[in-house]
């Protein structure tokens, strides 16, 4: 029903920086207009949008600024870093089912300003599930992931040197990407090991950037995509996923806290896909914190359980490796846009126009935040 029936036909980004002058609305407009221009589609033809519940600009402001036509489908997906594939997937379902014809998905963020960090907005009294961790000192997402990372290190023998290879590999990709924040900032193991701890065992280089920018994609039916100027990137398979008894970010209470929602997403994704983990040429995996990349490599079946650290340390995530991953530099070294930049990079890889192009890339996994309810896509050309 869904398989290969819709396609991404346009991508657009703003500049990425620590601090941009434009508002989030202006950034969103710029990225969406760029994506529509890339697709060769007029704004008036857009009849569906999907975004994040955490997006500060409502969809009607986007529609009336850009001059969209009458909308027939609009949705928002929750849980920040877990949301981008769900937003794309829900738009793809609407297009594949014939409810809508042309959809836009975007994410605009100004996060360089410290007041925009969500954890800084915690209230004096916590009434939701965070009451079981935040008053106790697990304040930020990095603290919540640090707990899982330490346990994983204990269970599987992951070393900090192995973990470093995620950050170092992605930094090398960013150094080759003219649009990346860290394009001119090489990183070596010595500097990584000397980096200050943010939440031991995670150091500053295991954390995503704090940055401003926006990214957008345009999606339409595969039939229509064949008549457009850019090579279509097909939505081959999609799933969202939430594990049984899941608890957002601080998911320590289930039978196996290291079995995240990604495992639920992965099983249902591969069920629908003609391409399996061995058929991937490239991957874009949400990386607000570097251990998430390793966790996802195992959840999605690229590595056996406990082997992702050795896989990364052997260079398998790099340009010549078995699964080049986060090839733009990702959230650690390109820009932090809740994973929207990873989606754009997936499209660029499959079009053959990435800064570090993986030769002959035909199939790409895009996976979102391991520690939240999440989603994933298999894209192919």
């Amino acid at each position: 029903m869904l398989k290969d029936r819709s396609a991404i036909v346009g991508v657009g980004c703003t500049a990425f920086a620590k601090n941009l002058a434009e508002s989030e609305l202006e950034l969103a407009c710029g990225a969406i207009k760029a994506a529509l221009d890339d697709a060769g589609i007029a704004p008036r033809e857009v009849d569906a949008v999907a975004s994040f519940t955490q997006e500060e600009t409502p969809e009607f402001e986007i529609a009336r600024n850009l001059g969209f036509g009458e909308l027939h489908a609009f949705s928002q997906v929750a849980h920040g870093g877990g949301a981008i594939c769900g937003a794309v997937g829900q738009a793809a379902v609407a297009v594949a089912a014939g409810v809508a014809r042309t959809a836009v998905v975007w994410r605009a963020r100004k996060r360089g300003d410290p007041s925009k960090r969500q954890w800084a907005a915690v209230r004096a009294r916590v009434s939701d599930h965070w009451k079981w961790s935040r008053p106790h000192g697990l304040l930020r997402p990095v603290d919540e992931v640090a707990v899982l990372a330490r346990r994983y290190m204990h269970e599987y023998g992951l070393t900090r040197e192995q973990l470093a290879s995620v950050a170092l590999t992605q930094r090398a990709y960013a150094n080759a990407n003219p649009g990346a924040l860290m394009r001119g900032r090489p990183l070596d193991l010595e500097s990584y090991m000397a980096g200050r701890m943010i939440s031991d065992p995670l150091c500053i280089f295991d954390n995503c950037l704090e940055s401003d920018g926006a990214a957008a994609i345009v999606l339409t039916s595969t039939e229509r995509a064949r008549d457009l100027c850019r090579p279509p990137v097909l939505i081959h398979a999609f799933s969202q996923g939430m594990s049984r008894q899941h608890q957002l970010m601080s998911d320590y209470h289930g039978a196996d806290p290291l079995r995240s929602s990604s495992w639920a997403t992965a099983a249902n994704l591969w069920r629908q896909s003609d391409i399996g983990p061995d058929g991937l040429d490239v991957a874009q995996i949400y990386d607000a914190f570097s251990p998430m990349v390793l966790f996802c490599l195992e959840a999605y079946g690229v590595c056996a359980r406990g082997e992702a650290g050795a896989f990364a340390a052997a260079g398998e995530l790099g340009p010549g490796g078995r699964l080049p991953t986060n090839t733009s530099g990702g959230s650690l070294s390109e820009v932090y846009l809740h994973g929207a930049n990873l989606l754009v990079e997936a499209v660029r890889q499959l079009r053959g126009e990435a800064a570090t192009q993986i030769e002959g890339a035909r199939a790409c996994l895009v996976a979102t935040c391991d520690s939240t309810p999440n989603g994933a896509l298999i894209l192919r050309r």
Partner: protein
Amino acid sequence: MIEERPLPTTDEPVDAAFWRANLEGRLLVQTCAACGLARHPPRAMCPDCQSMAVEWRAASGRGRLWSWAVPAPPLLPAFAALTPYVTAVVELDDYPGLRLVGPMLVGKAGDMAGFDASALRIGQAVQVGFSRIAEDVALPGWRLADPQ
């Protein structure tokens, strides 16, 4: 950004009994009155049998370190003032598989500030302790158990 340490609400039906017991130095675990399933955090309904009848059972407060983090700035001002501190996830001895988050405590006052993480190891035995940080909140935390 708040200046003080964030506190849990303690007056909600689903978990008020937990917080009330903390004030008396007791650790309780919510269990299903119909099927006996122990669960934490507390739920309004049992995910196994869908009963809404609950019992609160005492826990010994003994447990093992499952994992921990050592948060460092940037933090809320109230937590920055406590660094170095350690927040641990502990699996309870008498409720296997049931885990609670709490700070590692130092000294008799139940202070979490200044805990040295260097000697901790996963699986280490701990005992619950409570630090009174508001009129209605005695937050559970963990002390290293006396060596046997």
